[in-house]
């Protein structure tokens, strides 16, 4: 152990050296090393770990020189445990927000791995080296104790590993299409191998050790434990590489298959539910049969063949029903945020590049549509989960098959294409938004409130997102002069509205001078794009305006909940509605009480 600790101390300098040479700098190496140690998180954590390892060495020397007994090694054990748990402080887990939950989970993962894998060689030495008559009972007791502890340790390793995996991978396709995902799968595969070996040790060799006929069993156990240690050693190497690889959630996914499986996307299609449930039932039967075979209740070979056949039929029944076409960009994340400035830019691009076929209002009825073999898509239809934002990005980039739609890669930059997608997303949801009325439907957020940056008439800057989790925002769109009496009423109501958890943001819809002297902020810069974008949400059940003949209402008010969703809307042209200010306050009170139901809309693009 002392040798290992000293080795760890020396290898620590090797790790520091690697880090120094990984820094691209014109400065000499000793300057880089000094700056790395004194000015970076890596340096602080490195120094702390080296100090702890030195402490372990000293504690072991004291234990060696002092009186015999395991109590003397307690300080060394505690110090080495802390040194292990401190390792994630300079890794990926420290980059999470907030960091402490993931750091704790990662610390538990490492300490449990240390207590299990790190213990295997010592265990193999103890048990495998037992040849003296009478010592077998001692070895059996140690092995029994370790084996019981190992079940708990393995549960901690698997549980914390699952949490870490889910956090760093985020989306399952990333498992199959990123370096991090591949390494993680390899780690899981190695772990399965290790578990099979551990099961043999626990349920085959341990009972043999405690039985009367245990000739040579200790040697066997020693060999198996050592073999388990070697396989798990490869696993440690893979885990080390994983720590040096960009976590999958931050890496771009380039999907390699021409298809993907998605229950979300296919659930509403005919027969999907029936086939998916049938597949699940067949898979359950297969699992039950395999379970019976494992317990020895049925003939093993036949049962396994039956389980395999059942599993294959489950796949044959369910998978085709949930298969959707996919492209390399299917899982690409938007590089342009969902904001009104992007939507307005997308609207301009649409007018230039898409109007011809898809028509001015996106119905697929442009002047050039008549000559086409296949009618252009109606872009006002709801965007289902059938197509991801990445799918649309792929079509905009590469087009659809010849004669259906040309690719726009040569004419539009990547950001332009995301602007177009942001516009299409708002255009489509604007048509669905015609059902939004003055009364909030409790517990049903679905319409994203497009974020925007603004500067108010008195020079204050902010974004709509700033109100997240704090206030319900009343967005008031108005034409200068037209809504003056309304603004006076809202100004009178403002103190009560704020104390009820609301906030008002006024957005002029024309270029006239913005109203002044109001107690709430009035957007001066950023109003044009915001008004243009939110005008897409003007359609109502009684006034669909399918041909875009009256694009900008003179006065429209929207209530945005604390989590970024538009929940209610009042158009004075449609009725009295929120002219009754008490009714408006009631809607705000309802939203203030409501907990978070969906994740923030910007993270949830279809």
């Amino acid at each position, binding site marked *: *152990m*002392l*040798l*290992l*600790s000293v*080795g*760890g101390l020396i*290898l*620590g300098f*090797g*790790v520091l050296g*690697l880090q120094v040479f990984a820094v691209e700098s014109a400065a000499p190496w000793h300057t880089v090393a000094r700056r790395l140690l004194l000015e970076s998180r890596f340096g602080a954590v490195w120094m702390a770990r080296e100090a702890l*390892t030195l402490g*372990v060495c000293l504690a*072991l020397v004291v*234990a*060696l020189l002092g009186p*015999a*007994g*395991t109590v003397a*090694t307690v300080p*060394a*054990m505690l110090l*080495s*445990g802390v*040194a*292990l748990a401190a*390792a994630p402080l300079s890794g990926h887990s420290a980059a999470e927000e907030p960091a402490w939950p993931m750091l704790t989970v990662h610390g538990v993962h*490492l*300490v449990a*791995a*240390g*207590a*299990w*894998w*790190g*213990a*295997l*060689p*010592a*265990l193999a*030495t*103890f048990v495998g080296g037992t040849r003296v008559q009478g010592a077998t009972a*001692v070895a059996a*007791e*140690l092995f029994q*104790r*370790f084996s019981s*502890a190992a079940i708990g340790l393995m549960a901690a390793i698997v549980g914390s590993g699952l949490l870490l995996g889910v956090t760093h991978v985020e989306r399952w396709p990333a498992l199959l299409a990123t370096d991090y995902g591949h390494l993680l799968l390899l780690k899981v595969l190695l772990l399965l191998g290790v578990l099979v070996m551990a099961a043999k040790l626990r349920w085959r060799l341990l009972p043999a050790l405690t039985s009367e006929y245990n000739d040579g069993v200790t040697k066997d156990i020693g060999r198996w434990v050592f073999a388990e240690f070697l396989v798990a*050693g490869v696993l*440690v*190497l893979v*885990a*080390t*590489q994983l*720590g*040096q690889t960009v976590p999958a959630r931050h890496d771009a996914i380039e999907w390699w298959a021409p298809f993907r499986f998605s229950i979300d996307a296919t659930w509403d299609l005919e027969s999907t539910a029936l086939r998916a449930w049938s597949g699940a039932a067949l898979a359950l039967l297969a699992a039950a049969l395999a379970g019976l075979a494992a317990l020895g209740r049925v003939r093993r070979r036949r049962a396994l063949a039956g389980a395999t056949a059942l599993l294959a039929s489950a796949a044959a029944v369910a998978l085709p029903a949930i298969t959707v076409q996919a492209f390399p960009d299917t899982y690409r994340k938007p590089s342009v945020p969902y904001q009104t400035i992007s939507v307005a830019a997308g609207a301009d691009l649409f007018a230039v590049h898409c109007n011809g076929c898809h028509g001015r209002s996106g119905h697929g009825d442009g002047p050039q549509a008549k000559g086409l073999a296949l009618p252009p898509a109606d872009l006002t239809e709801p965007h289902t989960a059938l197509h991801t934002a990445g799918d649309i990005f792929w079509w905009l980039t590469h087009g659809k098959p010849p004669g259906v739609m040309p690719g726009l890669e040569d004419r539009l930059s990547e950001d332009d294409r995301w602007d177009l997608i942001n516009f299409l997303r708002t255009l489509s949801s604007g048509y669905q938004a015609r059902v939004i009325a003055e009364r909030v439907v409790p517990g049903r957020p679905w319409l994203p409130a497009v974020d925007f940056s603004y500067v108010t008439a008195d020079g204050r800057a902010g974004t709509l997102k700033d109100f997240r989790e704090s206030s319900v925002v009343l967005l008031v769109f108005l034409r200068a002069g037209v809504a003056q009496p309304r603004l006076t009423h809202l100004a009178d109501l403002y103190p009560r509205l704020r104390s009820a958890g609301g906030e008002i943001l006024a957005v002029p819809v024309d270029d006239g001078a913005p109203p002044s002297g109001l107690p709430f902020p009035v957007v001066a810069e950023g109003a044009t794009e915001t008004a243009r974008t939110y005008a897409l949400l003007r359609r109502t059940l009684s006034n669909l305006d399918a041909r875009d003949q009256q694009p900008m209402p003179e006065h429209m008010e929207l209530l945005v909940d604390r989590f970024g969703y538009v929940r209610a809307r009042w158009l004075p042209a449609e009725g009295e509605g929120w002219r009754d200010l008490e009714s408006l306050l009631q809607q705000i009170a309802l939203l203030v009480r409501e907990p978070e139901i969906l994740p923030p809309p910007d993270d949830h693009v279809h």
Partner: protein
Amino acid sequence: MIEGLGLLVRGLHTACALLVFGSLIVLHLAPQADPRLLR
């Protein structure tokens, strides 16, 4: 080559930390501590 060496050094560094901690655990679980492990 350099990458492989880097992986090896980092891997061994992690392995040393895990092994020291694990061996100390075994020492505490063992009914009769083996002084060989301390070295």
